[in-house]
């Protein structure tokens, strides 16, 4: 789950109450994600995806995101990470004309190097064209940031170009899928907690990424692997679930693993193991194990930046360690997000996201 959602509601939070209120986890879950959802559509176990239409927005649901992370490498072998995220938050279900649209858009972009982390955000109203998503041809944009479908793929998401900029950084990346879109949970219906909260959730985990990061020192040509998450829901968290830890790992053997836990009274774990042949196997309960191994002091709080990730019955037991432990997204809603190096039974690389760690 990558509840990157975090941010989603944040926008409302940011514009309306300021970060302090947004972070006020007490009772409302991280960034208010635990609050009620009257009038919004609810995820339906019987739902089956309809592409490319489902690549587009679902305004009847409260939150939705287009979330791409890329674990990258420079010509000298140094590790980098890039993030491009667009959140849609509906203040009320459905669409409205022009400025009266209740849809609000928020975007985060970041670049991580081994020694630095850059992040930026953008906010926009729906209805006027400043931000939005179209399914076919695929395009997601806010201001001059874009995730743009390119012609030539079987699926609208197969070939995409990414662009974003912020203070101190910019990137232009191209991503090409080497495998199909993968559904999480049960046919894309992904349960998030013991109370039965769920989301519609699918990914494109097979991107090969090339492009250029522009950093204060100058441009860096990069290559690597990318992972796009698509998720929408209306109430993903229990009120007592304060945050989550999420990993998307690209193993060198071509297989992929998504492993996550929502931290409530007891952690609620789930994941998906994706074979090199793209066959997906949902993991639940004890099938996936997540153990923090070492923490770091980040932005005044203790955050685990080295994890043991194990799927015993698949023979997977790896350690994921942050490329840069200080990959703190110091934005309207703040959280940790950055690339990891993977060692162990299945070496590779990936991305780690952690929310809800209070100072």
């Amino acid at each position, binding site marked *: 789950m990558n509840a990157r959602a975090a941010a989603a509601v944040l926008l409302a939070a940011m514009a309306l109450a300021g970060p302090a209120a947004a972070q006020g986890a007490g009772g409302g879950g991280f960034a208010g994600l635990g609050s009620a959802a009257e009038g919004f559509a609810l995820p339906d176990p019987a739902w089956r995806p309809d592409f490319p239409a489902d690549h587009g927005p679902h305004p009847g649901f409260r939150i939705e995101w287009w979330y791409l992370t890329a674990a990258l490498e420079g010509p000298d072998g140094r590790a980098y990470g890039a993030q491009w995220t667009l959140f849609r938050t509906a203040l009320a279900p459905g669409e*409205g004309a022009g*400025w009266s649209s209740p849809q609000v858009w928020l975007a985060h972009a970041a670049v991580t190097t081994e020694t630095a982390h850059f992040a930026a955000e953008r906010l926009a109203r729906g209805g*006027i064209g400043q931000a939005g998503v179209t399914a076919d041809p695929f395009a997601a944009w806010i201001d001059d940031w874009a995730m743009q479908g390119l012609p030539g793929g079987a699926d609208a998401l197969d070939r995409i170009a990414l662009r974003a900029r912020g203070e101190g950084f910019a990137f232009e990346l191209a991503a090409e899928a080497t495998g199909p879109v993968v559904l999480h949970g049960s046919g894309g219906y992904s349960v998030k907690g013991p109370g039965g909260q769920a989301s519609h959730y699918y990914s494109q985990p097979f991107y090969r990424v090339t492009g250029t990061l522009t950093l204060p020192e100058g441009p860096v040509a990069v290559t690597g692997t990318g992972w796009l998450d698509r998720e929408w829901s209306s109430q993903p968290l229990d009120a007592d679930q304060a945050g989550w830890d999420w990993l998307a790992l690209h193993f060198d053997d071509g297989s992929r693993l998504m492993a996550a836990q929502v931290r409530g009274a007891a952690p609620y774990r789930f994941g998906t193991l994706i074979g090199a042949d793209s066959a997906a196997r949902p993991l639940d309960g004890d099938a996936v194990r997540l153990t923090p191994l070492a923490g770091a002091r980040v932005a005044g709080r203790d955050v685990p930046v080295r994890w043991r990730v194990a799927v015993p019955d698949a023979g997977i037991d790896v350690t994921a360690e942050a490329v840069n432990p200080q990959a703190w997204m110091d934005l309207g809603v703040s959280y940790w997000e950055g690339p990891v190096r993977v060692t162990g039974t299945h070496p590779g690389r990936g991305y780690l996201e952690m929310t809800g760690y209070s100072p």
Partner: protein
Amino acid sequence: MMRAGMAAILSHWRRHPVQLAMLLAGLMLATALWTGVQAINAEARASYARAAAVLGQDRLERFVAEGAARFDQAAHVALRRAGWPVSPVLEGRIRAGGLRLTVLGVDPLTAPPQSGLAGLAAQGGFLRFITPPGEVLAHPVTAARLTEAALPGGPAIRAAEGVPEGTLIADIGIAQAMLDAPGQVSRLLIAAEVPAGLPDWREIAPGLVREAPEGAGDLARLTDSFHLNLTAFGLLAFAVGLFIVHAAVGLAFEERRGTFRTLRALGLPGGRLAALLAGELLLFAVVAGGAGVVLGWLIAAALLPDVAATLSGLYGAAVPGSVALRAEWVAAGLAIAVAGTLAAGAQALWRIARLPVLAPARPRAWAMAAAGGLRAQAAAAGALAVAAGALAVRGDGVVAGFALIGCLLLAAALALPVALHLALRAAAARVRGVLAEWFVADTRQQVPGLSLSLMALMLALAANVGVATMVASFRATFTGWLDQRLAAELYVTARSPDEGARLASFLAARAEAVLPIVSAEAVLDDAPGQVFGMADHATFRDAWPLIAAAPDVWDRVAAGTGVLVNEQLWRRAGLRLGDPLPLPGGALPVAGVYSDYGNPAGQAILGLADFDRRFPGLPHQAFAVRTADPAGVAEAVTAAFDLPPDRVLDQAAVKRFSLAVFERTFAVTGALNLLTLGVAAVALLASMVTLGAMRLPQLAPVWAAGLTRGRLAALEMARTLMLAALTAVLALPVGLALAWVLLAVVNVQAFGWRLPLHLFPGDWAVLFAAALAAAALAAALPVRRIARLAPADLLRVFAHER
């Protein structure tokens, strides 16, 4: 020695409490009027600054449309998508609940972070704020006044500190609905930090121009001349007040010559003495100035509601009705009190410092001007008159206008003693009889002593005549203009475009003519203005108040090949008939000029068809209705559409409303006028009281020759009245000259319209009587004292050789 010296000097005031009271009262009044005006101005300016600072607009660059007040929000989206950190603002004005309100539409999500708007919106639900009918934020005072009012589009009103009074902040989408400007914005604010390497905005949004931040905002610019007007009035009042101070200080110094001689003889150096006296003046300045500041605050508080109403009616500027104590005008008030006192006493101090030790301390009437002094005064008056003439011919701008007024009044004041002297000399040559000759001679001797307070009286009277004539001329012109301008019998305004359309067809069936009134905000001659669309109809052809026009003006306007401009735009832009006027959608030649006293902003009128072409999508919602039965039609409309009374107005109601605004506008002027006259009366009283004491040696021989004290008192009163009458007569031409300057120079510069001068002899008679009454009042106390002089005092004059 210093302490003893100070005690000796101050003892004078214990013996002459009335003189002390005069001095302090004069200084206090002068400071009070000046401070009051400054406090009003400061309050108004602070509120403009608050309005300009909303959204941090006073610090941010902006994109605006070239030649148009608004443009399509597509430019905003295009610039955002090119990476430009811009945020849209839509600004417009509405009337609701009897208030003129500024509606500010903003997008809270892109608004610059320093705007503080996020905080405003945070107090309530964002969803409620952005979705129809929406919610507007208003200052608590404004919100309270709008509780009964219906705003267009029906948004809820929420009180929020931090919003300027008279301003409604709404989401931009809600504001577009309220202002009937779908998809339109007024400007795009550019964030303080613009990333490097963005594409050229000219290519993304052609037709926009990039402008520097506007520190003060439109309001400050528009109202500048109004505040200068007030300042000039305050300065005049202060100058009149200084006459009192000068008179009282001079007199006190002369009367204490004996004391000074004694102190000097006892060994106090001249410089020390002067320092002591300066210290004494400083003490008075601080005490009286402090009291004046407090009084000024009270005056400002009393006048501000009227000023606020004027500013709101004339400029749409909202100024709160209460005056906050501000360091700027408190300090300025005290400073000017001190500076004024020292200036008024400088001459006396200078003389004291140089006084020979044993100079004869003979009491002589203070400031007894010799013939040489009169000649110098006449020369100065002449020079100032020449300067005034030069300013009248060559001067430009409001400041030059007031400089002209200053020269004119000062010249007249300096010329007054000369004129009185000449008049009395002529009288002396004519009168026969011992008593009459003594009366004239004695009056001539008195004039120098009274001349300063007579000058003050004349200034006050001249200002009164001038301002009253200006206001009355304005009122006469305005009333006639209203008659022309409001030719239709009924004015009806619909609440929505849809209702407007139904209203038009409903009225068409019942009235002789239904003439739509449409307008749009536009930039005219680089300033905010309004463009109107006018139907081609005999109503306008016959009655519209044109002051210059091409022969076929109405045909050209109807055909869309010519434009009418109002007088203020015509003068400000220096247009001539036939000159092209840049307008949204292309320039048009000026075909005619009409007088317009509604507001100081520029206006242009297009033919209705041409207007609709240039401003597509603006609905027809307001109508002028020609009908023989206005009451019947009004009743039918009200019944059929359930329109509130303020949307169905007959001609008389509109006129009544307009005249009420007019009267309120000049209420402040009237009040200041009256106060100035009061200050002049006090000045006269001060002079009379202080002179009275020194008159004894001159009156004693006349009394001894057989004139009763009652007779002497009557003669004294007659003299005062005669001098006041002479002064008033001389003030009349000065006042008329002042009125001319106000109408033909200051008004043109400040408001953009030139008014004909009307004469109102009836008002002069009233003022003449007021001047005599003021003089009689001022003379009453000294005259009563003469009537009650103890014969022993009069006899003592012959015994003492002072």
